[in-house]
């Protein structure tokens, strides 16, 4: 779709000129034809009319393209919630729609973290659920009987359209309308964003990126106008962002940073003062309304920068005020005093925060808690994934950044800071690629747009030079008001024209073709990545036969549904935390630990049970009232994300809390290898996880080339084929053995004796008469 859009976009670039030539052609027609047509063509030929129609069409198409390229999973599989976290979000949304908003805010979920439970209302960002619930409510009010599941599945694709519109608005403020449209098209299909917003991926990020972009747009708008109206709009959008995603911290740091840098660059103005003061106060109050956030904005370190900049801005404004009132001498003394005081305060604060260890939360956690390190999306990003997720944009966005810095003004300072900080965060964590994606799209769009401006729409320009984009008109309009952008842009345009003089039409067309080729490749890449990498529900697996037919491996749902139908309603299921949300969502049973990893020691206890031997594990399971144990085993079909492959993390996390009982080194061979065959460590071969995974697997011969008990995932014949259980029994195993569920037996009525009965020498016949 992208090449299509860019072509349209190119047209749009040329459109004022096309409109101009239309004038030129139509006039002789009118002169020779009839006078009646003049008014009509005059109305249509209004550049503003054409432009808004084109922009509207392009944005609509971008929305459509973004929406439809996110539907791969729905078309290939079905309308289903994906992965892990979305299942929790879906379950809470379901709770919200069935029980109402207040019931949802007060929801204590006794079905998770048994026996602790979880206060859901106070530990979630409710924006997502409320959004979906609201849409569902409105639709049902109109008697559009849409199931809440479908609302949840299609929420992210719909919001991607809103994201592209807000990206368009933001880029238009930063550069011009053409770049805005290009950015909208980019963000609609870029894989870095699609990865979090395919249909079915019902997660916070899906709506948060929209909120992020929209907040930034309103911020730029309020910085430009200095009006309280836009500032308040920005606060409301920020409030929505806070309610939707923990990533709001990015906003509350980036905006102060922007203000700070503006101060440093001597770009302080009343607009900045009004915008930031309003934003900080109202935004702070609003953000504290979210129960999960609570008092964090005035307590934790990541919000302190905002407060500091607020204080600084007030001080600066005060000094400016004093400057007008005082003599130079007085002012200088006062100034140095103030600076010294402020520096002291800041210094002490930083010392304090570093001491309490709240600064640099991510890296701190990473070193000390294996559970955070164990999540794959918390790993540093590789170069490959930058290219994979952003493709050509990652190469062109520095150019856009350069353009912005070269023609700097207030809001371009902002986008430069946005780009630099986002690049840093994306480098730290794969997951934060998501915040980088929008800014990369915007800057690349700026780069492409200026290139196209050079190489496409110039012939007409020379004939009638002052063709202006509407945004330039905006600038002109604003120049009367407080604004300083127009002059510079104008100069820039004329510079370009001077440079262009020497370029022949051939070079121009070659460059244009090259650019279009790049965009086409980008579109192809995006579609390919979306289709292959990001469109798997991961709840349903599919394998392809040689003839292209498809086998659906539906083992997860098979097992979860078995749990849902054929176990006691209050049965407690122990599994590794990855599957907690899915069990709660699909099987509707009580879980011990889940993906909301708030209690490390509880998870460690489960890890300990999994990595101990059976009788030790039985003690733990009895103390936790476990009825069923669920594990994922991929050895039969070669599924690599199974529990044995995750097992070392369980051991590590268990060791973190119970170093006396569990030692990671015990699970390795003396050579330091982790292996499941005969050479594996005996502790591993007798631990509960191993036994549950391979119970009766030793008898199973998968094909004739391999011995019985050959594990396809780890390509090894298992080392312990004679597995017997004393306290557990197999309750269910799914068709491809992917999910295995064991039942924890109750204590026997009588303890069976392990040894033979002692042969007791019969005593002489004496019996008590008392009985």
């Amino acid at each position, binding site marked *: 779709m992208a090449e299509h859009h860019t072509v349209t976009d190119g047209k749009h670039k040329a459109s004022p000129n096309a409109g*101009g030539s239309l*004038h*030129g052609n139509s*006039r*002789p027609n*009118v*002169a*020779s034809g*009839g*006078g009646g047509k*003049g*008014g009509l063509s*005059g*109305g249509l030929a209004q550049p503003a009319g054409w432009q808004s129609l084109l922009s509207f069409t392009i944005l609509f198409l971008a929305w459509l393209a973004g929406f439809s390229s996110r539907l791969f999973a729905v078309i290939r*599989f*079905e*309308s*289903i919630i994906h992965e892990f976290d979305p299942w929790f979000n879906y379950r809470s949304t379901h709770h919200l729609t069935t029980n109402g908003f207040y019931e949802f805010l007060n929801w204590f979920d006794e079905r998770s973290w048994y026996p602790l439970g979880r206060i859901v209302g106070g530990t979630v960002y409710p924006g997502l659920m409320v959004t979906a619930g609201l849409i569902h409510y409105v639709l049902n009010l109109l*008697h*559009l*009987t849409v199931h809440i599941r479908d609302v949840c599945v299609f929420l992210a694709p719909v919001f991607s359209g809103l994201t592209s519109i807000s990206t368009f608005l933001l880029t238009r403020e930063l550069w011009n309308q053409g770049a805005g449209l290009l950015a909208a098209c980019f963000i609609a299909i870029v894989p870095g964003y699609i990865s979090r917003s395919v249909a079915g991926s019902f997660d916070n990020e899906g709506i948060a990126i929209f909120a992020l972009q929209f907040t930034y747009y309103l911020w730029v708008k309020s910085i430009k106008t200095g009006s309280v109206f836009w500032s308040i709009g920005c606060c409301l959008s920020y409030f929505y962002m806070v309610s939707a995603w923990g990533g709001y911290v990015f906003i509350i740091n980036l905006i102060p940073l922007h203000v700070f840098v503006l101060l440093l660059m001597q770009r302080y103005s009343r607009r900045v003062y009004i915008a930031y003061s309003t934003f900080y106060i109202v935004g702070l109050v609003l953000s504290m309304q979210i129960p999960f956030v609570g008092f964090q904005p005035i307590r934790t370190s990541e919000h302190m920068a905002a407060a500091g900049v607020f204080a600084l801005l007030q001080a600066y404004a005060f000094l400016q005020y004093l400057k007008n009132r005082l003599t130079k001498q007085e002012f200088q003394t006062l100034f140095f005093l103030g600076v010294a005081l402020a520096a002291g305060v800041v210094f002490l604060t930083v010392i304090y925060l570093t001491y309490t260890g709240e600064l640099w939360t991510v890296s701190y956690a990473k070193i000390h808690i294996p559970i955070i390190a164990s999540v794959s999306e918390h790993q540093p990003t590789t170069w490959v994934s930058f290219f994979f997720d952003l493709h050509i944009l990652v190469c062109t966005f520095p150019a856009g950044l350069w353009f912005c810095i070269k023609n700097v003004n207030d809001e371009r300072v902002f986008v430069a800071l946005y780009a630099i900080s986002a690049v840093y965060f994306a480098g730290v964590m794969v997951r934060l690629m998501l915040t980088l994606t929008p800014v990369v799209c915007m800057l690349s769009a700026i780069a492409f747009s200026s290139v196209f401006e050079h190489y496409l729409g110039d012939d007409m320009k020379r004939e*009638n030079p*002052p063709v202006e984009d509407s945004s330039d008109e905006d600038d002109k*309009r604003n120049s*009367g008001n407080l604004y300083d952008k127009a002059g510079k842009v104008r100069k820039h345009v004329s510079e370009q024209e001077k440079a262009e003089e020497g370029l022949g039409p051939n070079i121009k067309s070659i460059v244009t073709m090259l650019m279009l080729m790049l965009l086409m490749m980008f579109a192809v890449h995006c579609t390919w990545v979306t289709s292959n990498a990001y469109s798997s529900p991961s*709840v*349903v697996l599919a394998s392809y036969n040689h003839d292209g037919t498809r086998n*659906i491996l*539906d083992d997860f*749902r*098979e*097992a*979860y*549904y*078995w749990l*849902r*139908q*054929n176990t006691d309603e209050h049965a407690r299921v122990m599994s590794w935390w990855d599957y907690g949300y899915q069990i709660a*969502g*699909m099987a509707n049973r009580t879980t011990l630990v889940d993906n909301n990893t708030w209690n490390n020691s509880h998870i460690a206890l489960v890890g300990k049970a999994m990595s101990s031997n059976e009788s030790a594990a039985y003690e733990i399971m009895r103390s936790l009232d476990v009825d069923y144990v669920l594990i994922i085993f991929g050895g039969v079909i070669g599924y690599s994300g199974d529990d044995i492959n995750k097992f070392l993390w369980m051991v590590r996390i268990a060791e973190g809390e119970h170093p006396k009982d569990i030692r990671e080194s015990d699970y390795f061979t003396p050579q330091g290898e982790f292996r499941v065959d005969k050479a594996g460590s005996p502790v591993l071969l007798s631990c509960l996880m191993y036994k549950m995974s391979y119970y*009766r*697997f030793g*008898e*199973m011969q998968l094909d004739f080339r391999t011995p019985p008990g050959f594990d396809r995932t780890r390509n090894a014949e298992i080392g312990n084929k004679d597995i017997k259980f004393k306290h557990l*029994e*197999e*309750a*269910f*195993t*799914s*068709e491809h*053995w992917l999910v295995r569920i064991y*039942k924890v037996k109750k204590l026997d009525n009588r303890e069976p004796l392990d040894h033979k009965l002692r042969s007791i020498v019969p005593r002489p016949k004496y019996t008590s008469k008392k009985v």
Partner: protein
Amino acid sequence: MMAGNKLSVKLPTFLLLITGLCYQVAADDGLVNEEVKRTVDLSTHLAKITAEILLSNQGDSAVHSFILAVESDLAPHLAYIGASVKGDEEEDGMLELKQTAIQGQSGEFYKVQLPSSLGAGAKLRVKVETVFSHVLRPFPTHITQAERQLVVFQGNHYLFSPYPTRSQTTRVRLASKTVETYTKLGNPSKSDDAIEYGPFRDVAPFSEDTMKVHYENNTPFLTISSITRTIEVSHWGNIAVEETIDLRHTGAFLKGPFSRYDYQRQSDSGISSVKSFKTILPASAQDVYYRDEIGNISTSHLQVLEDSVEVEVRPRFPLFGGWKTHYIIGYNLPSYEYLYTLGDQYALKMRLVDHVYDDQVIDSLTVKLILPEGARNIHVETPYPIDRVPDQLHYTYLDTFGRPVLVASKTNLVEQHIQDIVVHYTFNKILMLQEPLLVVGAFYILFFTVIIYVRLDFSITKDPAAEVRMKVASITEQVLTLVNKRLGLYRHMDEVVNRYKQSRDAGALNSGRKTLEADHRTLTNDISSLQARLKAEGSDLADKVGEVQKLDGQVKKEAYIENEKNLASKRLDLVTRIDSLLDTL
């Protein structure tokens, strides 16, 4: 009729041997079961008991009806009872049944109306069909995966009848050869999977003798514990059917572990479990879906046959004894096959309950019939009595006052209950327009709001710069139209000049020129006034308009003077210059 009977023997006692009294009863209406052939079919999880009875009227007067009886042990499980006359020409006319009671006798009794009266001494062959659900008890009640399922059936050796029986045989069909025990009344003979009892001669009325068979039965003991069938009729040509089904395996419970390894490797492991079954849908069924709360059930297959659509329904997991599952199956049907209409009168003829699997048992059925919005005078004809619940309202797409929903329920149904229900109602066809009009109205309001919003200024502050710009724009537009008109005048002038060249009619030329000049003057004046206004607004466009005026003056001077070619080219040149100037406006 039987009120005079003084018998007060409690059932179930084993034998009623007070023959004298019984004969008296029989004498009351003189009917005798001359010859009875009973077949007890136990090969599925149902007990289907069919009796072919040769009734003979040995009384004095003609008889119009006779009585069928069901033992009190079995009566609660009775799902279906039907009687038909077995004629020579092999066409079975179904007879009408009505439940009655007989004082002093427990059990259930049905009075069968004969098609024609049975005269004294006449004989009639009647076929009675009864189906009992949940009468085969698994024994042992819990089995392991490797074990086979054994069940016990407890019934009656004799035909339970208010009439004396001269001679009868009972044939029991079993599901397998393996029989643990069976009662040995009258030394029955046992072949492969059948046991033959009798013939028994001269059996008294209401005689009971417990027949007990304990045998292996691995047929699927599937029971639909509840089914909700929703039929939504749309007059736009579609009938949507959705069935929500709770399914349970009611055989022997699974004891101990379920081993997938054994289940996959050994063919006889879990032999009584249910892997899949077939549901037959109507031939025109489309868009079939099979799903549950967590999504599609991907293990099913659909086969379109000539006279039906066959769905191979495979639950997500095999059903062992005591296991249950829940699913939804739905499809669309074209309404022309089921909906009949005459003017405003409509009649819907649909199956009240449809096939789910062979030999199905439905413990509880709820049917919801959603008629189109505005259907009135609803009248229902059911094939058998069914409990109606007060009607409800249902709101779905584009509904305003709701669609009427008929709700009916019934318990204990079997395959014989797959029959048609007819619903008559009236519907005003004008109401069909309501939904499109709603959509049109909604869009109209939407566009209208946008138009209003775009055209009017809602801002509370005034932006003088923007206002001036808009004023200038509107004036410029006026100037453009005027200039266009003026250009039209020139063209007109050309024509006049051409005509003059042909006709040399100077008068016409002059008059034409005068009018044109007058028009031209007014237009030029108008433009000048607009130019003045532009100037007043402080726009630099005024200068450009002035330039246009100047150029126009040149055109005028050179107009219609001798050298036409020169003139034309010049004018063209000037016009293009004007154009390029106009472009910049």
